[in-house]
């Protein structure tokens, strides 16, 4: 059977629809939606993202509103459903804000690592030779560095700053991404459709953009999903050490850190952010695992 391939190396969608065949992506989608843990996680995460995005606007209390009712236990009185903190601020509002900041840090820092890692890896893999060698040795050297220690140094030297946290974490996480993309690029580079594109006179950057990147989407998507929880954890880790976002802003890590100090007398200060954190990370990991199994089913 002869497949008609268009310039991008994909099957012609019309042809494929007529033949009634299933693409790799259809199969992957079906496997992903058959994975109960992943589907439930997607729903839960969707709700969490909605709460993080709109919750702070919708909730009756403001996250920075100080009141005289300090360290209240959870009560229906005045809608302090999770109680208040040591400055009398409503904890539902603060947890929603914490969730928002943690998710935002996770996504933005992952995006930073995605852009740097994909560009670096694709160029190294596509150009090859000495350039590839040099670029990947650079990655090797950075790999050997104890990065979290450098991030801590950076934060103490330049002051705590949420942009710096985004950038620092993103700059650390791109290394693995670049290795994955390079490996994929090397594998694809030798295929006939790339050769055809080159013969047709397509320029190097255009080949990378149009023909190579679409083909590395799978492994990159899996890695991105699994990087977000790692980043959220790293931010909370810094927050826990007292190096996170500044007051009156907060993140789940800050809330957990504050709660842990008084867990004996007021365990509710710790429970809410701890549960939110655990559920968020669980969902992201389940989705990432589900995606990986869907795209690369050999372990099932």
């Amino acid at each position: 059977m002869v497949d008609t391939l268009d310039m991008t190396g994909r099957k012609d969608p019309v042809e494929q629809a007529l033949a009634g065949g299933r693409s790799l992506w259809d199969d992957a989608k079906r496997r992903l939606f058959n994975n109960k843990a992943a589907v439930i996680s997607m729903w839960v995460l969707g709700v969490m993202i909605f709460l993080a995005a709109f919750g702070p606007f919708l909730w009756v209390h403001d996250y920075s509103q100080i009141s005289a009712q300090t360290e209240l236990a959870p009560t229906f009185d005045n809608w302090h459903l999770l109680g208040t903190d040591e400055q009398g601020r409503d904890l539902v509002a603060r947890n929603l804000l914490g969730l928002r900041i943690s998710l935002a840090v996770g996504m933005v820092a992952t995006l930073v690592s995605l852009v740097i890692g994909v560009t670096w890896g694709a160029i190294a893999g596509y150009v090859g030779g000495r350039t590839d060698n040099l670029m990947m040795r650079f990655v090797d050297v950075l790999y050997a560095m104890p990065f979290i220690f450098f991030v801590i140094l950076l934060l103490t030297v330049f002051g705590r700053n949420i942009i710096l946290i985004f950038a620092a974490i993103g700059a650390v996480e791109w290394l693995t991404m670049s290795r994955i993309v390079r490996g994929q690029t090397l594998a694809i580079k030798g295929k006939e459709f790339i050769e055809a594109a080159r013969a047709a006179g397509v320029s190097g950057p255009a080949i990378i953009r149009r023909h190579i990147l679409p083909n590395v989407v799978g492994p990159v998507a899996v890695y991105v999903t699994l990087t977000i929880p790692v980043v959220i954890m790293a931010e909370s880790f810094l927050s826990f050490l007292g190096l996170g976002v500044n007051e009156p802003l907060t993140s789940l890590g800050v809330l957990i850190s504050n709660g842990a100090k008084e867990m004996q007398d007021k365990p509710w200060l710790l429970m809410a952010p701890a549960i939110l954190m655990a559920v968020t990370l669980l969902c992201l990991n389940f989705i990432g695992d589900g995606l990986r199994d869907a795209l690369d089913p050999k372990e099932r």
Partner: protein
Amino acid sequence: MSALQRSLSRIPWAYVIRRLLFAIPTLLVIIAVAFFMMRLAPGGPFDGERKLNAATEAAIAAKFGMDQPLWKQFVDYVLGVLQGDFGPSMKTLGKSVNDLIADGLPVSLAIGSLAMLVALIVGTGLGIFAGLRQNTTGDYTVMGFAMAGISIPTFVTGPLLILAFALGAGWFAVGGLGEYPNIGMTFNNMTLPVLTLALPQIAIISRLMRASTIETMRSPHVRTARAKGLPERTVIMRHVLPSAILPLVSYAGPAMARVMTGSLVIERIFGLPGMGSYFVDGAINRDYTLVMGALIIYATLIVLFNLIADILYALLDPKVKYD
């Protein structure tokens, strides 16, 4: 030739030496970046609430060699480090960084290596258990716990464990090392920190082991072993285990690095006077020399562990190429 001699002869010495030589510039870069970053930053360790008079300031600067040009300070510092001298602490009066590291390092190493040991034993066991029972209830249970172990950070599990087993059940100490007169690391003090630090590693290792067990079970040499009519027990112990354990060896290096980072948090939660607490306090107080000293020790340990893991891997896997 004895077994030991045979193993030694299999160590790729040229590779080891090349890796050691590679480690030196890596460490130098780490020292240089950290040194210049801290010195160029606005604000110094002696910026207090009160403004010091110029003479006092100059005297302090002279004591720590900070009146010298920057490059000279750097060269002096590196020469000192090469002789094992990390200089005086800038914030803890009368103590050298060497003293502080000598206090803290044993505590951190003890927690870290115990946690690693626990993680390796429990993680490997659970992973093989789950791998041999792929897609059964036992497998799902173990993997569910592993997922929780990966997703729940240590600064959540730590306080929860304290809440349950120290404050609640009263089985273990809430934190700190032993109290006078039995100062030291006792079972009572160490159990919870070691367990908290080990949990995420148990989770990661068991997932790794499960995947690699499943893969090995399907490989031709296992099929051959079965076809020979070997009992299942022998097949697993002699043929599955040795090759299934290989990916674990290459994870050992990164795992040690993660355990060391994790111990920054563990030491804070449990109030343990280890290297991690010195590093974090040093960074917050801008104790340049202490932070540098701790950073260099951490970096050296991580480079060293990666090297050991790689050599071990080369020893165990005859197929590996060294470059």
